Structures are given as C-alpha cells and as structure tokens.
C-alpha cells in the first residue's frame, strides 16, 4: 500500500449549503477556522470524530465528504 491522500469536497458542500462560511462551519463542528482551511486544502487529515462532525454538519456521510486517493 503506497502513501494515501485524503481529499474532500468540503468547499463545494459549503457553497451548496447556502454559502456557509469557513467560520460558520468551524463554529458548528467546534474547531478553529484555520483547521477548516487546512482540511479543505488537504494539508490536514482530521480525526475520525471531527470528520464525522464535518460530514454531519452537511447532513452527509463521511464517505460522501472525504475520499481516500492512492498516490
């Protein structure tokens, strides 16, 4: 198994959810805006509970928000 990359479509989901801002999403899931930015850009892989909270904020499942891509 090579090194995997976790990608996501948080940005698109935010815009689809009434143009939710990063700060609003951060407040909803209980993290800082910087963490949301880093997660969106793929620079930070959230923990499972955080990933589930983010997915729950959009009413989606974790696998609908995050994807594991093999490098």
């Amino acid at each position: 198994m090579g090194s995997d990359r976790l990608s996501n479509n948080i940005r698109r989901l935010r815009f689809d959810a009434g143009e939710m801002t990063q700060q609003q999403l951060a407040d909803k899931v209980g993290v800082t805006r910087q963490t949301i930015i880093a997660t969106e850009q793929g620079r930070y892989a959230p923990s499972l509970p955080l990933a589930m909270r983010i997915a729950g904020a959009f009413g989606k499942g974790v696998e609908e928000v995050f994807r594991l891509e093999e490098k």
Partner: protein
Amino acid sequence: MNKAQKCAWFNLIMAAILLVLLPTRMLSFPSRFLDGLAFFIVFGVIGLFVLLFRKKQGVVEFDERDKLIHKRSLLVVYFVIWGFFITACIVPYLMLGPTGSISVYIMPVILYGTFIVAMLVHSVLILVQYGRGGKDGQ
C-alpha cells in the same frame, strides 16, 4: 495570527535577544549575580506572556490540529534539548581532556543556553507548521 503564533513570535524574539545577551553579559564577572537575576526575570515575563491573551468567550482557540502541532514541536524540542545538553557536557571534556577544569559558572550558562535553544526551536517549529498554508492559512 492565532494565540499560539503570537506567543511563538514573542518567544522567538525574546530567545534571540537572550542569545545575543548571553555571551556578552554573562562573562562579566562583577555582575554575574545580577545577570542571573535578570535572566530569571526575563523567563518569568516569557511565562506570564500567555496570560496577556484573554480567552474569547464562545470561540474555539485550541483544537485537535493545534494540539498535534504542539505535540510535534515538543517532541523535536525534547531531542534538541538532549542533544544540546549532551554536546555541552561532552565538548569541554574533549577540548580540555580528563585533567582539565572549568568554572562552575559554566553550569548555569549551559542551563540558560539549553532553555534559549529550546525556546528558539519550539517557536520556529510552531511558526513553520502554522505558516505552511499560503495566504489563507494565516
């Protein structure tokens, strides 16, 4: 810039100042006691700096990513401290040999130096990890 970054910048500046002051001031014999006292006061100010930032109500300021960044930084600082301390103990032995002697004043200098280097490394690591994000990463 978040609280951790501000503290890191402050510690970085203080460590840089102390690094310049250490060799120039602590070698002056008459005021060694005052120098030691001054360094303790500076370290106290550094420690109290965190209290200057009030926690904003209802705002998350320290989450799992911040915890991870601090944990990684502390891990590296742990090894740096050991490396610095071991080097500081071994180098005089290698330079002076088994029969050489050094002033006991060197011991607090090693202690201060270790602390300053640890502060420098910790601050730089914090800033690098937070800063690797381009414009939006603050």
